[in-house]
């Protein structure tokens, strides 16, 4: 009986091994970071990050699994082989590069000016204008280096909602914020009626960083190359654009 069981298990293992030829790639994403990732009602992860993960798997022709993981422990968990890659809006930094390898960036969230709809922004526009920024944000630094000399006055806030409140009241002429924050927290809410993004997309790497990448274990070169190739493919075949348009009104490539 016992021998039989073992034999059966062996046959099963062989059979399963044959079927599961298509390997499974396991991604971890932040459990709650909308609109990039959040847990859907059925427990599956939904959002920009999981959708990109699924598109990548489709391009690589592997099975995909996206599991939630708290951001603060996500790199140690990767190194403990709980999953194979992190797609959690993780910004590429020198510090993190010591612990993991990054793919090319899969998005770069720009910063944008939010102003009354129809505002035309050029260098001359900044003269005498009041621009709301978050205290000590990368946006404040950029604005100080570029717009103060054009005659703009910076007004520093502690929180984004305060700056939107004053934008609505007319105390500032524009708010300079992370575009995702501007769209999700203001423009898409009833308060944002009559307002829109104005001027260009700001994503100078010197101020705003290198964008977000997918992280794999250090030295996992085979997987890194495959992910980079897949990234290139989904950008070329239009599946990246489809996902991006679902979540954002502006280009974050």
């Amino acid at each position: 009986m016992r021998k039989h069981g073992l034999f059966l298990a062996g046959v099963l293992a062989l059979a399963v091994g044959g079927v599961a030829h298509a390997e499974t790639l396991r991604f971890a994403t932040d459990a709650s970071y909308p609109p990039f990732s959040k847990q859907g009602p059925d427990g599956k992860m939904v959002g920009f990050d999981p959708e990109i993960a699924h598109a990548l798997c489709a391009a690589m022709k592997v099975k995909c699994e996206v599991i939630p993981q708290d951001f603060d422990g996500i790199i140690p968990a990767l190194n403990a082989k709980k999953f194979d890659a992190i797609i959690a809006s993780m910004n590429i930094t020198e510090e993190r590069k010591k612990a993991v390898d990054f793919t090319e960036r899969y998005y770069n969230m720009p910063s944008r000016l939010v102003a009354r709809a129809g505002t035309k922004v050029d260098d001359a526009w900044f003269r005498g204008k009041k621009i709301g920024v978050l205290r000590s944000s990368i946006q404040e630094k950029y604005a100080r280096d570029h717009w103060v000399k054009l005659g703009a006055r910076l007004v520093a806030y502690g929180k984004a909602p305060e700056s939107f409140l004053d934008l609505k009241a007319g105390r500032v002429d524009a708010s300079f914020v992370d575009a995702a924050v501007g769209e999700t927290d203001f423009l898409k809410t009833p308060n944002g009626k009559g307002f829109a993004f104005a001027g260009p997309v700001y994503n100078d790497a010197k101020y705003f960083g290198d964008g977000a990448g997918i992280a794999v274990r250090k030295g996992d070169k085979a997987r890194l190359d495959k992910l980079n190739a897949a990234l290139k493919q989904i950008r070329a075949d239009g599946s990246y654009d489809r996902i991006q348009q679902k979540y954002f009104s502006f280009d974050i490539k």
Partner: protein
Amino acid sequence: MIDLNLILENLPSFFGGAYGEPVLSTSDGLVMTFQLLGLSLLLGLALSVPLALMRVSRNKWLAWPVWLYTYVFRGTPMLVQLFIFYYGLSQFDAVRDSWAWEYLQEAYVCAILAFTLNTAAYTTEIIAGQIRNTHYGEIEAAKAVGMSRWLMMRRIVIPSALRRALPAYSNEVIMMLHGTSIAGLVTLADLTGVARRLYADSYQPFEPFLMAGALYLTFTFLFVWLFKRLEGRYLAYLAPRKH
């Protein structure tokens, strides 16, 4: 450990010089704190003398509105008053469309308004209390020489009440110096506002706030000393005999 370099490097920020600009090139920091304090104390004091006279009036229609005003402004935190003037008023289209909006859209004006009305409420009660405390002998003397009610108020009661209000008023001045620290919450860069900015830049909470605290402390002592001298001069007649 306290990072002395961080304090030294950012010392100019507290005196209006940040981001490599020379000291006093902006009104950030100490200058802002003293502008807010000076203007609101001046306006508040000017308001509170007539208000105190109304407060002690026997006419209900004069006394009651002032009672209500001081009750409301002394009964609510100054921070709440500031938020009402800054964020509250701007919610109404009527306010935003009126002539007043040109001024009310400035955080500076809202802060002056809130601080002035707050300190005026306290100062009114301080002065009104001292008017009530006026020694009956002074009143009788004024009446005996045939002064009219208004002349008596102007020459005898008010000057005497203001002198005796000095000790309590010095407390109010110091409370207001500390009270202005909430201006940073409506985008103004006063002493505390600058400290908050340095904290956000450096992630070091201890040094910037320690520096701001040291400056507040210095000026508190300066005010205490100043008022002691004023009391020595104007309240000398109340001091116990020395010989």
